[in-house]
């Protein structure tokens, strides 16, 4: 079930109520049952894959722990541990490959072979992608590596471990949790805490605002333009691409916040996934603020094992490119996603190469690198670079991405920004203006976060009556302005249609 659905709005209160009523020893069992129920609402039969991943990584943790404690020779233990991790990774990534990448791989192979004149017929396998598989697979594999590295002890309680893998707030769309954070919290179920409860509600409300008021509203405009990019060329595409940057942030960020808020209401703190990413002053900074749980996962479980930055600059750049290409592939089984990842990798590499030159130039020109002007310029440049890469993420294919870029460059129609043409792209003037107002609200909130201020913390410190007013107005605002329910259409109410 989606977070922005009636089902979830009924599901969450029931889960919370039962969680705080049942005895402590049953709480985790209840959460586990609720999490599996949550997952089965998407597609019941794929729960087998979730269970398989859970069992494999649970057993790998147990075996690794036993190997550590064994009295066998160190070399044997090390080789065995590596073998266990390799088998675990192979099995889990194998399933991920089968369900997510098989058709992509066979198509790609077929296309490559055809360039050499070899015709290869690879029938497409009709498999529905299990929802959340990329997320829970990475989370479970992260646990295995943590045990391998002796960063944590293996979890002996299967049910507690299963809950760690399947914890419903973050099961289908992250944040990807670390065993050191989430598993530790599952040891001691917390007592009801009213303030945490309220904090959770604030996170959820902000998440719904981002998702259904802003992201889904922007999507109407972006979908209109991107689905007909030949006719909506030039400035239409520029505006749509800029808005897409905000849409994807709000969509993903909103969803993450609802996950964080739901967990908070259960007394569990999840990792924050976004930290005012569009206030980044460089691409490297952006990737420290965007989808933090995934970026840090790749850093700890791919970049560092590849050697990180410890084997010379060339190897460092290569490792970064590998990480970003894999990250692109993780996001979607298509060349456009790989291109998106690759572009971001290139940005990082080029950014690092140019850093000394940048420092020399700014020094020579006596530019204050801590000044607002310089930072603003860096933020805008970073946004432009990131936004360019979003074209590859949003476009339906790699070829479309190139065509869209061409359509942006070859058509000059700046007047559409001023003559009301933008109101013909799915959003009427009022909705367009509302969208702009909401974007300003988002920017102000993120600016506060950038400056280290937590608006939710500030809110929690206010008087009760004020908090009640904020909460009531937020809920009513989301109800009134959110994109949900049926779209009212006068033409459907024409009396003589039957």
């Amino acid at each position: 079930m989606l977070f922005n659905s009636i089902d979830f709005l009924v599901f969450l209160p029931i889960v919370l109520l039962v969680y705080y009523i049942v005895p402590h020893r049953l709480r985790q069992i209840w959460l586990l049952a609720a999490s599996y129920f949550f997952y089965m609402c998407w597609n019941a039969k794929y729960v087998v894959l979730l269970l398989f991943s859970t069992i494999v990584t649970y057993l790998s943790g147990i075996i690794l722990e036993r190997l550590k404690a064994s009295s066998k020779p160190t070399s044997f233990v090390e080789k065995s541990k590596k073998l266990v991790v390799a088998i675990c990774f192979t099995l889990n990534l194998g399933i991920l490959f089968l369900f997510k990448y098989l058709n992509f791989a066979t198509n790609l192979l077929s296309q490559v072979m055809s360039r050499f004149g070899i015709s290869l017929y690879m029938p497409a396998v009709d498999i529905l992608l299990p929802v959340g598989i990329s997320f829970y697979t990475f989370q479970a594999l992260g646990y295995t590596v943590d045990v391998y590295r002796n960063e944590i002890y293996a979890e002996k309680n299967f049910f507690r471990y299963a809950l760690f893998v399947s914890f419903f707030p973050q099961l289908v769309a992250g944040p990807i949790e670390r065993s050191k954070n989430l598993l530790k919290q599952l040891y001691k179920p917390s007592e009801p805490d009213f303030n945490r409860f309220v904090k959770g509600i604030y996170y959820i409300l902000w998440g719904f605002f981002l998702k259904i008021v802003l992201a889904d509203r922007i999507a109407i405009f972006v979908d209109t333009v991107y689905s007909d990019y030949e006719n909506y060329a030039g400035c239409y595409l520029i505006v749509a691409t800029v808005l897409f940057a905000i849409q994807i942030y709000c969509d993903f960020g909103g969803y993450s916040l609802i996950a964080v808020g739901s967990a908070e209401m259960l007394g569990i703190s999840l990792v924050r996934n976004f930290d005012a990413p569009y206030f980044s002053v460089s691409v490297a900074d952006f990737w420290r603020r965007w989808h933090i749980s995934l970026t840090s996962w790749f850093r700890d479980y791919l970049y560092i094992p590849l050697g990180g930055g410890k084997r010379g600059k060339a190897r460092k750049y290569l490792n970064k490119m590998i990480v970003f290409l894999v990250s692109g592939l993780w996001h979607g089984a298509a060349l456009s996603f790989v291109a998106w990842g690759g572009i971001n990798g290139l940005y990082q590499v080029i950014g690092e190469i140019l850093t000394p030159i940048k420092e020399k130039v700014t020094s020579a020109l006596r530019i204050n690198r801590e000044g607002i002007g310089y930072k603003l310029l860096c933020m805008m440049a970073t946004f432009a670079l990131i936004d360019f890469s979003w074209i590859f993420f949003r476009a339906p294919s790699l070829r479309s991405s190139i065509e869209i870029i061409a359509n942006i460059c070859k058509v000059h129609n700046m007047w559409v920004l001023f003559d009301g043409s933008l109101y013909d792209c799915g959003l009427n003037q009022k909705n367009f203006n509302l969208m702009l107002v909401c974007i300003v609200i988002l920017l102000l909130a993120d600016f506060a976060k950038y400056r280290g201020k937590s608006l939710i913390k500030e809110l929690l410190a206010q008087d009760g009556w004020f908090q009640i007013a904020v909460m009531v107005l937020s809920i009513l605002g989301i109800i009134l302005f959110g994109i949900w329910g049926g779209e009212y259409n006068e033409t459907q109410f024409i009396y003589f249609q039957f």
Partner: protein
Amino acid sequence: MKHNSYISNSRFIMITRRTVAVVVTMALVIVGGYIIQEVTRAKSSEVKDLSRSTYFTDPEQYDVIFLGTSHALYGISPFDIWNECRITSYNWGSPASTIPSDYWKLVNILDYQKPGLVVLDCYNVSMTYKTMSEYRIHEAFDSFPLSYHKCLAIKDLMQGQRRKDDDLIYSKEEQVNILFPISAYHSRWDRLTEEDFDYQLIDTKGAGLLAGVAEPIEMSATSAKAKLATDSYGIQYLRKIIEKCQEDSIPILLVYIPFPVTEEWKMEANMVYDIAEEYELEYIDFTNLDVVDFKTDCFDPNSHLNLFGQEKVSRYIGRYIIEHYDIQSYSSDTNTGKKWDDLYEEYSVYRRELIGEMN
């Protein structure tokens, strides 16, 4: 002891304050949500009053209830009936309604009153779908407050059911949209007008008035007794309506409002004779009567009567009801009589304006 008592007092105060805060928040959200729903709800569509507010102010005043599709909605005027025979009635016709919808309208109406007579237009009795579309269900049920019978209606009409418009099964969200109209209407925030905040109703007792004259299509004749042979949802729910009325001791009159019929519709009208005979009910098949003149009384070529045709049909039905059913006529010196006479004056002015616009 004092310290413990102080702590437990403080704790009690804290719990009380928090409970009050939660209750106040929820209450404000519910009230606010209700206000949003009422403001954004479409009060009228084209020429009809979607809110049906005049019905709910005093349901007991209506002795006769009309049910049916837009044929009934635009074919029967309670005020023309009042003018003819001074009986009170309310028109619950709605566009593209179906007999199953009409069954559930009746069940919900019975939560508010027990009418002296139910008149059901049997157009669409041959339909094999329970409903046309989500919007038609909105038009039929939005005016009913949320209630047990409204939930049952939505469950029966939509859960697992296909709609005629596109043959798709209703989703859960669409069902929720009907139960909570705010889900469909909240997006009207960008189209609100003065009418949404200060709805000035022309009281037509639920009826719609169509001002216009159209050339009718050519009607094809068919043998008098030929009928569609289907065990449709229409027939099933027609039986349910009749049996419900019998259970509640409410007389029911079946009608087929006139319109330029083709052979298929004539055969549909003929289907009702068997049911009427089976249950020993009166049935006015207007397709066999010369009550209207389609050259002057059609609003559109093939379906709806204009207000001239509406007046003729209404007077006929009014006289029929007085002759065959025990329905009270109100004299002008009764409260009801005075109230309806005043309302009829307003209605007449509105009707004359519509005719004036036609000319």
